[in-house]
């Protein structure tokens, strides 16, 4: 039965349906409503778990690490500065191959201070060795949260479920919450073979000399790459239980004969799809939404781009002094592929800047332009800036000719 729920509330209910043993909580906008809702479920006796209100995000991640290492299904949530404060713990969790789930309510990173949505926070920890899944809407946030617990225990890897702050977390949508029976049928009880147990003492987190560190990284890298199978399997199995899938590694939508592709992550996909419908006079683009950013689904991406002449990567973060982060990875995945489309990369929607329907027209225009935009921030309002910073778009968008 569908019910109107705020995104955070729906995510909290989804977490509760997964029967976590330990939840660590520290507030940060726009994540706060998630841990507040879980606290209320615990207070009302609807969720039996150890709810640990910690004194920082560093400790939120650490408590979850310790709990999972001791055999508990563990969960926490954060955003922005919180994710960055957790950074070393996130690396440690992944390196120790600790299965747990974290919701990242995506938000910009200071400075300047912004509480609003972009993807810089989860991009900042993309190399930590976590699985990162980006959600298109709140139904998918619910379904992905449930799948994430399954993927974590199938792979012995931590999973970060990325949901757009405010756009999803603070928005009411009709949500079909699964039943406890459905979730129990999909998600077996948490069993962690390497759990700390006095009957079978293990030393976890030992020093690794140069003789061993490389091998540890090799195993970890292989595990994240191989997680594509677990992600696809979890989505397929969940579809059988609930009737809803999330697209597995990535979702492709649009006419089969489209020549222009737009690649994005997160909730902006809905805006782009609506815009395409609302502007029939423009070419109908194939919209590719990466759901799994880590592992990066290079093979699936190549297949999704087959037949395209143009791909414009739209992302909500950047690597200053270089280019778009997703854009660079898409280029790398398509490099050397025969008949690969021209790839252009833009950032937009930074720090909560609205992404209106007209964005679609801008992206189509970019795809149709003869000059190639390696990277540009699309929606800068130059007239707000001092003269020195009004560098022309041409200087940012380094033109390197038509590569197609």
């Amino acid at each position, binding site marked *: 039965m569908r019910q109107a729920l705020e995104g955070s509330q729906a995510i909290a209910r989804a977490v509760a349906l997964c029967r976590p043993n330990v939840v660590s909580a520290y507030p940060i906008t726009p994540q706060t409503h998630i841990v507040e809702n879980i606290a209320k479920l615990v207070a009302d006796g609807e969720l039996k778990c150890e709810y640990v209100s910690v004194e920082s995000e560093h400790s939120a991640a650490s408590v979850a*690490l310790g*709990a999972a290492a001791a055999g508990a299904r563990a969960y926490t949530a954060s955003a922005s500065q919180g994710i960055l404060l957790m950074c070393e713990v996130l690396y440690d969790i992944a390196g120790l191959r600790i299965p747990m789930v974290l919701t990242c309510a995506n938000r910009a990173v200071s400075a300047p201070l912004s509480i609003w949505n972009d993807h810089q926070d989860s991009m900042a920890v993309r190399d930590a060795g976590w699985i990162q899944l980006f959600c298109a809407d709140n139904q998918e946030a619910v379904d992905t949260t449930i799948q994430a617990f399954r993927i974590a225990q199938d792979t012995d890897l931590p999973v970060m479920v990325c949901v757009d702050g405010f756009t999803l977390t603070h928005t009411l949508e009709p949500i079909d919450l699964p039943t406890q029976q459905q979730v129990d049928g999909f998600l077996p009880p948490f069993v962690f073979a390497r759990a700390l147990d*006095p009957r079978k003492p293990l030393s976890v987190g030992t020093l690794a000399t140069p003789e061993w560190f490389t091998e540890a990284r090799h195993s970890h890298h292989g595990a994240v790459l191989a997680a594509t199978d677990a992600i696809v399997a979890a989505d397929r199995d969940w579809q059988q239980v609930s009737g809803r899938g999330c697209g597995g590694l990535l979702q492709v939508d649009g006419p089969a004969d489209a020549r222009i592709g737009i690649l994005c992550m997160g909730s902006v996909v809905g805006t782009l799809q609506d815009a395409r419908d609302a502007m029939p006079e423009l070419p109908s683009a194939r919209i590719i939404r990466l759901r799994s950013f880590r592992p990066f689904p290079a093979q699936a991406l190549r297949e999704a781009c087959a037949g395209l002449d143009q791909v414009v990567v739209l992302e909500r973060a950047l690597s200053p002094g270089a280019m778009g982060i997703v854009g660079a990875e898409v280029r790398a995945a398509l490099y050397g592929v025969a008949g690969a489309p021209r790839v252009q990369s833009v950032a937009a929607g930074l720090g909560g800047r609205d992404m209106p329907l007209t964005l679609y027209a801008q992206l189509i225009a970019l795809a149709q332009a003869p000059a190639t935009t390696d990277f540009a921030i699309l929606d800068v309002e130059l007239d707000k800036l001092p003269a020195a910073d009004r560098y022309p778009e041409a200087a940012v968008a380094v033109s390197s000719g038509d590569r197609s």
Partner: protein
Amino acid sequence: MSANSTAGTPAAGVSISLAELRENQPRFQGFVGGHRACVGCGQALAARLVTEAAGPDVAVANATGCLEVFSTAWPDSAWRVPWLHSLFENAGAIASGMEAAFKARGQSTKVLAFAGDGGTFDIGFQSLSGMIERNHNVLYVCYDNEAYMNTGVQRSSSTPHAAATTTSPAGRDRLGKRHMKKDILQIVAAHHMPYAATASVAYPSDLRKKVRRAMEIEGSTFLLVHSPCPLGWRHDGAKSIEVARLAVTTGLVPIIELERGALTGSMPIREQRPVIEYLRAQGRFQHLFADTAEAREELEHIQALADYNIERYGLRGSGNDARDTEGADTVRRGGVRWA
């Protein structure tokens, strides 16, 4: 060693399994030999005493530092209890998570958190404060060797006043560390702590008794164990116990117990030794014996600190020192259950 791979199975060429060994050993040992601590390391001795007294139904959360580094290098391990090292500053939080997990799963296992003074007084102070504020059922043991020894002897907020370290060296304009040692015990006790105590490796039976006391308390407990570091304090490794005992008998390191902040126990000093005996034994204080007015003033200052401790905690006492063998027969034994 190699607890990761061989627990419970006979090692090649050995006719007895580790499980059998464990059943037959006279007393439980959670931390065994073969590790790579320096000669005379107070921390290694203290960790052995603490795990021995705590018994087998424990799990250790270990902060980054000497203890973590010298006790493990994959694939070896000196630990015979479940042991988790995560990072430098999160031992309190890791321990909190482990305790929450055991609680949620109805498991009786007691969590021990081990950290040095850097991981406790300084970088790990926040997560320690969080853990004890939430009163997790964890015994937190700080092995206090009064500087960042693992990185090569840098001053911490536990380094005593006037001690020379590589970041508080003695020179023409400086006589070692200019600041006072942080009174971590009182700060910890201010968290409404059920039990917070100091101990010293020079008094192992007292240390064991305090561990057992803490193990019986449901809630956060804290033990600050004064642990000499021959490398950082610059004394002969064979003199560690002697030096540690002088720290106590001079009054510089009061051995006390605080319950909910109130003083409930103290180790009396039968014959107070002058602080110069303690200071002279260590290279880190040698600059205080220069023939200058400043050095003499510092010596007087340090003597005053010791005298203040003795007055403050009423340490002047009579009778014999606690016997080191006392309580040795009550350490927890291994057994089938823990094989």
